[in-house]
C-alpha cells in the first residue's frame, strides 16, 4: 500500500465511529458508521493533511456508488489528482 493510501486510510479510520477493528480496502463503507457529511469532512481533512486540492461538488454525487473503503480511497485520489 502506498503512503498516500495509508494516509487516506488513517483519515477514514478517524471518522469511522461505527467500526470495530482496523479498516482495510475491502471494508464495506456501510460498516464505517459514517453519514453523508462525513465524506465532506474526510475530504476537508485530506486537503488539510496532504496539502492537496480536492475539487468536487456535493450536488454532483462525485463519489458515485462506492461500496468499499478501497472505492472511497480511489475516488478521493482521483479527485485530488494523485491517482
Amino acid at each position: 500500500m502506498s503512503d498516500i493510501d495509508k494516509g487516506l486510510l488513517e483519515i477514514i479510520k478517524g471518522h469511522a465511529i461505527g467500526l470495530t477493528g482496523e479498516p482495510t480496502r475491502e471494508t464495506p463503507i456501510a460498516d464505517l458508521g459514517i453519514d453523508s457529511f462525513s465524506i465532506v469532512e474526510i475530504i476537508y481533512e485530506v486537503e488539510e493533511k496532504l496539502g492537496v486540492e480536492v475539487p468536487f461538488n456535493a450536488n454532483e454525487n462525485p463519489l458515485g456508488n462506492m461500496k468499499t473503503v478501497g472505492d472511497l480511497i480511489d475516488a478521493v485520489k482521483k479527485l485530488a489528482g494523485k491517482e
Partner: protein
Amino acid sequence: MSRRVVVTGLGGLCATGADVSEFWANAKKGVCGISRRTLTAGEEFSITLPVAPIDGFEARLESLGREMSRADRFTQLAVAAADEAIADAGVDFAGGLGARTAAIIGTGIGGQTTFDTAYLAMLKHGKKPHPLSILKIIPNAPASHLSIRYGLKGPAFAISSACASGAHSIGVAADLIRHGSADAALAGASEALLTYGAMETWKAMHIMSDELCRPFSKNRKGLVIGEGAGVLVLEEYESAKKRGAKIYAEIAGFGMNADGKDMINPSADGAADAMKAALSTVGAADAAAVYINAHGTGTLLNDPTETKAIRAAFGADADKLIVSSTKSMHGHLLGAAGAIEAIATLKAMEGGVVPPTINYDEGDPACDLDYCPNEARARRIDLALSNSFAFGGLNAVLAFKKV
C-alpha cells in the same frame, strides 16, 4: 385558546455552576465567577480582561455525544443545559408529545468561536474554513440540534434580540403553548462569546468594567461578559398536573415591547411599560412577597433607568419589594442572560431565598431600591419578575407566579 403554562424543568450552566444545583448553591453564597483572563487568537493576538468563563467544559464534551463534536460551543452549552432540564422535568417525548413540543433557543450572536476560527484560518493562513462552519455558526443550531436529539417536531427557531434573547425565547415559547401551537417546549438561550475577536469588539464600545461587576452600586464600572446557557421545560398546566410533574411556577405574565428611541440609551418608559404588561395578567400580589431579578448590568445608564422603571411600574410598592442582579456573580451572559436569570428567579421562588447583588460597595442616590446587597436573604416569594432590556431598545419581562 388561552391555556396556562408552567415550568417543570431547569437546566443551566455558567461561570458559577456546571449545573443548576451548583449554580444555585453558589448564588446563595454570593460566589463571584469573574476573573481576569487572557484570550488569544493565533500567536500574535491577545486580550486580557475580566470575564466570567465556564472552566472545564471540554471534559464533558465526549459525554454529550458525537454530534456535539460538530457543533459550536454555544450549541454544546445549550445541549448540556437542555439535557439537564429534561432529566429534571422527567418528561418523556415519546408517545406523541415530541410531535407537539417546541424548541425555542435564543442567542445574541451564535457560533462566534467558529467564526473566529474560520476567519483566522482564511485571512491569516490562507486556508479553507471547515466545511461544517456554517452549520456551526447559524443561530438556530441549538434549536435544530435539540429537535433532532429529542425528536421534537413542533415549532423550532432561534430568537435574537441581543440581551433579551433568553427572555424573549421563554416568553414566546410560553405563548406558543398558551395559544395551542405546542403542548410543551424547550425554551431558553445560549451564548459563548469569550473569544479574542468578540471581546475586542465589545471593548470597542467602552462600556466594559476593568474589574468586577457592581450593579446599582455608586462605583459601578460597567459590565463583565460571561458565557453559558439556560433551558427551561415548559408544559401546558393541565397536562403537567395530570402526569404529576414538579411545577416550579406558572409563567403568569410576559411583557415585550420596544423603546423605539435609541440603539444604546435605554428608556425608563419602555422598560416600565414592559413590566406593566407582564404584571397585567398576574392578578394581585403582596408587594412584600415580590422579587425582581433585575437586568442590572452595572453600567452607568442601565441601573438608574431600571430603578426608575421599577418605580414607575410599582409605584409606592417599589419600596416594599426586593430586587437583585445576579449578573454581579455570573457576569452578563448577553443572549443567554434572560435564561440563566429565569433559573435564578425560579430557584429563589422555590427556596424562599433572594440571591444577592454582590460587589455592592456604596449606594447611588439614583439607585434607591432594596437590591439585597452582598448577602442572600430569606424571603417568601409569591411573584417574581425577570427583567431583560437589550441594546436596540428591546424589552422582555417574564412574570412567574407560584401555582
